[in-house]
């Protein structure tokens, strides 16, 4: 199949001026909040080694854009921001200054295999808080994400929170071995309730516990989780206390009504070891972003520290946010040879006073009427000349 001149690779998009403008606005609002919360913005390379970031990123292999460098090493276009930032944080430079707060606004790349409707390149904005394994760190990043969603005006925003480790312990208490528990978690990630019900029949779950097992996908509050907590297991007891504390902290920060605590909520991102969460809002059929605690990822870079963070998808935020329709004043000055100097001076003067001015040589415009219609004010050169 020959490629037509206007075509772009699958999933690649042009940002026309209106979208580019909305994105710039969104970026400004978001990164401002991130910086206010004490995070420092950074930028990592677009290209990374497949051997390091490519493998660690937990993005499936066939979603990676791969290419070769001049030595024949395989490179990837960065598929996420969390792993590059973990690499940066683990580098010698930053190790001593833990905990560190890093934020980003970057494009990431994920190849699409199916039809359209999904971008293969999109911007993400988010933060990573590295070197703090306390609950306060988790509450901080969740609250910050929430503040950004509110600031951007996302309607009916919701957060779903789960806990990978606690779920693992609870599943073990139902008598499941690692393999069975893995299968259940896979179904949880796919949110396949029917599959869970069918699988439950084959699992060695005591009959009196079956009903409680099937309720795993229905919890909405931390209190609901109590049903599965084995008080004799110290780790479970402590993790559950943590969740209660987290609920309190988030409630205090004003997020109470917006959170669903779903113990079955899991992520396909395998590096999340503890708390996991996802954000939703009206207007987009896809999650707006996600995050969680990924202490295990830091370990891969040789660092035994806690880390937590979130990433929001700018393309989906755009669907969720109704842009302000305020028309920006934009002046057009049309000139020709006779009044060129007047026009130029006027433009400088208006621009200096903060106005947005387009200076255009009139004879070069083929259709004057549709062109001038794009502006809120039109000044003609002859007017300047005469006045």
């Amino acid at each position: 199949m020959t490629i037509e001149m206007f075509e772009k690779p699958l999933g690649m998009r042009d940002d026309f001026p209106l979208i580019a403008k909305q994105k710039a606005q969104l970026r400004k609002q978001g990164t401002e909040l991130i910086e206010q919360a004490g995070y420092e913005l950074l930028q990592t390379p677009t290209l990374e080694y497949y051997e390091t970031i490519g493998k660690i990123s937990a993005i499936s292999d066939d979603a990676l854009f791969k290419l070769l460098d001049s030595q024949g090493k395989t490179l990837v276009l960065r598929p996420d921001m969390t792993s590059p930032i973990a690499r940066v944080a683990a580098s010698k430079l930053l190790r001593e200054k833990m905990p560190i707060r890093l934020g980003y606004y970057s494009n990431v790349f994920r190849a699409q295999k199916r039809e359209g409707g999904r971008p293969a390149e999109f911007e993400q904005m988010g933060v990573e808080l590295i070197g703090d394994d306390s609950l306060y760190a988790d509450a901080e990043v969740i609250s910050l994400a929430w503040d950004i969603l509110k600031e951007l005006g996302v309607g009916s925003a919701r957060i779903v929170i789960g806990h990978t480790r606690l779920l693992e312990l609870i599943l073990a208490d139902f008598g499941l071995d690692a393999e069975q528990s893995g299968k259940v978690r896979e179904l949880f990630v796919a949110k396949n309730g029917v599959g869970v019900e069918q699988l439950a029949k084959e699992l060695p779950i005591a009959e009196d516990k079956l009903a409680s097992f099937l309720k795993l996908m229905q919890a909405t509050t931390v209190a609901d989780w109590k049903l599965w907590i084995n008080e004799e297991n110290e780790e479970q007891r402590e993790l559950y206390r943590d969740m209660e504390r987290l609920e309190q902290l988030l409630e205090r920060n004003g997020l109470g009504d917006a959170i669903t605590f779903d113990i079955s909520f899991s992520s396909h991102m395998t590096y999340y070891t503890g708390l996991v969460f996802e954000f939703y809002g009206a207007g987009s059929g896809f999650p707006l972003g996600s995050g969680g605690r990924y202490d295990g990822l830091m370990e891969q870079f040789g660092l035994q520290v806690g880390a937590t963070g979130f990433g929001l998808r700018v393309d989906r935020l755009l669907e969720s946010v109704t842009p302000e329709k305020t028309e920006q004043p934009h002046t057009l000055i049309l000139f020709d040879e006779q009044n060129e100097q007047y026009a130029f001076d006027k433009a400088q003067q208006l621009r200096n006073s903060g106005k947005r001015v387009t200076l255009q040589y009139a004879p070069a415009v083929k259709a004057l009427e549709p062109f001038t219609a794009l502006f809120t004010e039109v000044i003609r050169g002859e007017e300047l000349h005469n006045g």
Partner: protein
Amino acid sequence: MDELTIAMPKGRIFEEAYELLVGAGYDLPKELDDSRKLIVEAPNEKFRFILAKPMDVPTYVEHGVADIGIAGKDVLLEHDRDVHELLDLGISACYIATAGLPDTEMDEVTPRIATKYPAVASHYYRSKGEQVEIIELNGSIELAPLIGLSDRIVDIVSTGRTLKDNGLVEYEKIADITSRLIANPVSYRLKQQRITELVDKLREQVGR
């Protein structure tokens, strides 16, 4: 009360699902399906039905233009869409199986499989450790072995009548199929209460 947009396949599945919803106590207008309209409203329950091709239901739900939908497990297996599978409605039961001419072996060098479900067929034979060539057809799959296009077919079997009438026999069963209630992951969170209520009511109906 939030409005729920429900994507439904036209035809028999729609009728069975309609019965289930009415049985669950939902106040739906009579004869929703008799027009050529693609969108019909049930204002008393704040439902909006999108009438779609069965294969397309999970697509609408995945993109969130429908909150929930009713889709055959065959379609879900084939397309692997990111949707919640909430409930087995138990309607339109059938299964996917392999079939072919009686007493035949698959070609050893290039075994060919004709099917409407290329992903399901490919996954099945790979899991058996066999490399096959998949030929995608859109209907009348039973023709393929009869005219020498393929060694086997992978298709839906409900009564087995079509196979028999065409002199084909079933070889292996791949998966049981029923219709499922599916939900968009975001809708499920934003309208969780309403959707859970619907699931509970329907579950009672299905259990009968």
